[in-house]
């Protein structure tokens, strides 16, 4: 028999510590592992770009030290190759090409009629991978389906590998082979706190706070438009810098600023935000301080959401080509020669060319 004595007051059983909603978010892997300062994120990306550049340099040296390769190269061609390889893939270029392919992830998910959250998770996985890996490690086009497949599993949307592979017309192995590396790049954290739940929450709360002041059908339109806009937030870095409710508020604000300012004012202040500070009582001062802080965050987030990193076709082509050249520098030479030939052709036969057009 155990001794008859209750747990001492020092036992964790009696701890008065309550876990607040804020604690929960702060303990989520999204916050502990996937939130960055802008500088921190930039630094990670610069590091990847740096190592990418080193790899190009090494590759170039290896290529040029092999006489098999160099014996047929003109000085001109060697110079051009050196120039191209010296460019590496900059942090901005990698971000651009990754953003472009993240958009492709979204397009494929839409085509596969996947639920919103699976799509958003796949997009977020995709972008995260390239914070720790270079496009040289795995070409973005080879990660698309692995991301979608893992996102399906993680979000409880079952599709067997065989069905999935046949749907997207890819070899099953090519989808599964990258899974482990992807999971590793995600730091083994799969939970993504999305923006769609907060959107629904605000949608309901706006109706109650602005009861009778806002048309329900109109609010429905705002909701739908914001949902589309929020999907695009997964193309940006917003989720690394802001919490989902912040992103949602920013997005709603971009949709209808007047409506949202009214809502925020009533929700968080309850008095005119232009009231001079000396006219406010203590609790109002605290409210005002928090309100200002919130507005500041929302506006910063708005800037992030407005960034568009998708490259134009020409730059996308150039970056893509350079990734390709890395695996086989000879392809660069071939393209260079073809281009030279075309230039010569153009300059010697301008009339013929013009006629063709």
């Amino acid at each position, binding site marked *: 028999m*155990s001794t008859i004595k209750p*747990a001492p007051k020092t036992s964790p*059983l009696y701890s008065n510590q309550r876990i607040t909603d804020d604690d929960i978010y702060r303990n989520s892997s999204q916050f502990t592992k996937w939130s960055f300062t802008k500088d921190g994120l930039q630094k990670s990306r610069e590091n990847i770009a740096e190592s990418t550049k080193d790899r190009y340099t090494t590759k170039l040296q290896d290529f040029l030290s092999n006489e098999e390769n160099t014996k047929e190269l003109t000085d001109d061609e060697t110079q051009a190759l050196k120039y191209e390889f010296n460019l590496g893939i900059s942090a901005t270029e990698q971000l651009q090409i990754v953003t472009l392919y993240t958009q492709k992830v979204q397009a494929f998910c839409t085509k596969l009629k996947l639920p919103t959250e699976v799509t958003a998770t796949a997009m977020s996985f995709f972008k995260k991978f390239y914070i720790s890996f270079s496009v040289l490690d795995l070409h973005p086009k080879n990660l698309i389906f692995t991301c979608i497949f893992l996102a399906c*599993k993680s979000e409880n949307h*079952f599709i067997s590998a065989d069905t999935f592979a046949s749907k997207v017309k890819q070899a099953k192995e090519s989808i*599964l082979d990258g899974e*482990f590396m992807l999971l*590793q790049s995600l730091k083994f954290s799969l939970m993504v706190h999305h923006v769609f*739940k907060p959107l629904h929450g605000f949608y309901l709360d706006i109706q109650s706070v602005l009861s009778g002041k806002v048309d329900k059908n109109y609010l429905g339109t705002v909701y739908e438009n914001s949902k589309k806009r929020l999907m695009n937030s997964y193309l940006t870095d917003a989720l690394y810098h802001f919490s989902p409710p912040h992103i949602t508020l920013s997005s709603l604000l971009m949709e209808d600023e007047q409506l949202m300012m009214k809502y925020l004012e009533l929700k968080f202040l309850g008095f005119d935000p232009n009231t001079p500070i000396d006219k406010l009582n203590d609790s109002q001062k605290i409210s005002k301080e928090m309100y200002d802080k919130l507005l500041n965050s929302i506006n910063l987030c708005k800037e992030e959401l407005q960034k568009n990193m998708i490259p134009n076709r020409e730059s996308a082509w150039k970056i893509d080509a350079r990734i390709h050249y890395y695996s086989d520098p000879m392809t660069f030479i071939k393209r260079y020669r073809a281009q030279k030939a075309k230039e010569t052709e153009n300059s010697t036969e301008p009339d013929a060319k013009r006629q063709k057009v």
Partner: protein
Amino acid sequence: MDTGDYYSKEKKLGEGTFAIVYLGKKRPSNKINDGLPEQVAIKEIKLDLMKKQSEDVNKGDVTGIDISAIREIKYLQELRQHDNIIKLFDVYTDTTNSINLVLEFLPMDLEKLIKKKTIIFNSMDLKLIVLQMLRGVNHLHRLSIMHRDLKPANLLIGNDGMIKIADFGLARIYDDGGINAHSNMTNNVVTRWYKAPELLLGSKNYDFKIDIWSLGLIIIELLIRVPYLPGKDDADQLTLMFKVMGTPTEKDWPHVKALPNYNTNLYMYPKPNRQEWRKRFVAISDNFLDLLINMLEMSPKSRWNVIQCLESEYIREYPRPSDPMDLVALMNE
């Protein structure tokens, strides 16, 4: 450096389909200033094993990394801060083909404790166990996570007497029906004896209450020391449950007849009244009995949620729970 470098795998503790659990011991070469315990459990999930198995069997689909491994990793990562949930210290890989989860080493579980008939729980020990289980489940439900496999073997006990919920291989997020209402969840969850009636009746639209049902039965098992509803198969489970808890009617449980496995030819067993419940469990307090009756309400709508359980009179009334260290002493007797 990840924790893989801190620990050596000492001996095999158990083996599942795709995972092997080892006892991990801190390497003497490493400094002990990082707050990690001397012993851990290392759950090694073998990926090549998964592939091979699928190829050999050549039936069923290859799915890559096993879904239960994905769930376990996904949820444990988010549940690091609660005393009543098993702690994941780290995840690392030694080769390209395995994932290692470094977990708290918890040598005991509730199943072993229940089976050890020499141990006698007093009302304070019982409350200690009930309270901790409810707290753990509360944390899960608050994070919108349904465990979906609560049973004595998945409730582990630490050397400090703390109860820890483990095994998240079946867990999932509950979508509250807002935007992406999930009305198509698999009902093939929870070990049979702990399956809630809505699951047995084939509902694909259940919620957190299935965990409460399992907990209710676990509590009874603590009292009587044998499983309360040990059905031989799912059909037998349903019959047994109706015999003991009464066949649900439209009056107690609106729309129950619409559930796939509800058969109109069912024998209508009467619902036990309070007196009947009292006869079954004579030694517990009125408030404890209330808690049990409400946790085992057939209709999920009327069944208490975890907050109601935690705020119940049973938890408030005397006696206070015993000291977790008493549970340790009890285990070592």
